[in-house]
């Protein structure tokens, strides 16, 4: 294979990659409350921003205390303006403490990812 041929193949793949970049595993880019962060006011919702659009029917978020007690949350949905943002309402005001968010997301091309993180509600 000549170097010119290899360059053409790479250029073609780069084009394909750019043209289809909307399809991939949904990876968490940002969260509110922040991953590992501290808030002073109980959040009313949890927002997870992914690298790709997600399918809310096959995605989910659970919220538990440090002791593992589940906290009530609403049904997951996506932000109407951005289908890469998964949102759940927090069902009640959170007392000060450490909370764990556990999520799983199925991207619009059906790839599944999962993760979890803590945040703290300060007194």
């Amino acid at each position: 294979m000549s170097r010119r041929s290899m360059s053409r193949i790479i250029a073609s793949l780069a084009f394909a990659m750019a043209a289809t970049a909307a399809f991939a595993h949904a990876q968490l880019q940002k969260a509110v409350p922040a991953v590992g962060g501290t808030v002073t006011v109980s959040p009313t919702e949890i927002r997870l921003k992914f690298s790709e659009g997600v399918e809310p029917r096959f995605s989910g978020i659970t919220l538990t205390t440090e002791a593992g007690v589940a906290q009530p949350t609403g049904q997951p949905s996506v932000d109407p303006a951005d289908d890469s943002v998964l949102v759940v309402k927090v069902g009640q005001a959170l007392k000060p403490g450490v909370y764990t968010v556990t999520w799983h997301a199925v991207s619009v091309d059906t790839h599944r990812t999962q993760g979890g993180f803590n945040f703290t509600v300060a007194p």
Partner: protein
Amino acid sequence: MLSKTSWALAGAIGAGAAILPLAPAFAHAIAGNRIFPATLGIDDPGVGDELALPTLTIPPQSSDGTREFDASFSYTKTIVQGLGISVSDGKTWLNPGGNGWGNIDTELKYNFFVNAPHEFMASVGLDATWAYTGTKNFSDPFNTFTPVIDMGKGFGDLPASLNILRPFAVTAQFGLSIPSEPHTSSIVYDDSGNPSLDVALNPTVFNWGFTLQYSLPYMNANVSEVGGPDLLKHLVPITEFAFQTPVGHVPPGGQVTTGTIQPGVIYMADTWQIAIEALVPVNGASGKRVGAVAELHFFFDDIFPNSLGKPLF
């Protein structure tokens, strides 16, 4: 007109067709919260539809002063979920010494174990390098078969008190390369034209290596938000260790472990990654001076999720 049974069947097929595209698909090398990147010195423990092109290598300079440059590719196609076959080949340029292709290499690999909570996965494979598929003098005149096991373990299951260590992961690979011919014979002629029989031993080699990697994407998603430029959220600093130890049919004086230590960094995008690593020889038999390797890697399961990127069956 369709009967009730036919309508029910058509409905079931239609429902199935509607649901199937939403059945979660897995690919990459994923165990729970962990995504293991494709690595250069050893293979990662996953099986997916992917293409490494090109892999460009400047090996550590050999003791005789010959300079070498390699360009190679590797394509993996999944047959069923977790089972894939890969084809690899590459060209070598020597100065002095000309250039030529190596033998074609294939590997059948099966991801047989994934433990999501503990971010552990393991695969087994059988690699075969096929004789007479490369350029003479740049390829061996015999097949080589290598049973391989690959493993990966992320440390996301450590307690929160050790948060700083949770982005760490290790992967490892062990393989035994067994030549189909224990020795290769050829007739050589001296300066006077007198023939003699030259017998070269083809050693059985234990290939082993591991990587230590620290995933900033993992940190950003699971431990604490990574500040600064977005670039940082995609980086995986890594050091690979790749060794070869002859264990059988070893020529006198040849029972020396060779290898490289490969510090570098991987940039993980959504559908591709790029990696660059130094090649530091571990001893004089492994070369002199530091080499380098770089690779562009495409994840076809993400780029072409409905065609090239999904299993054949």
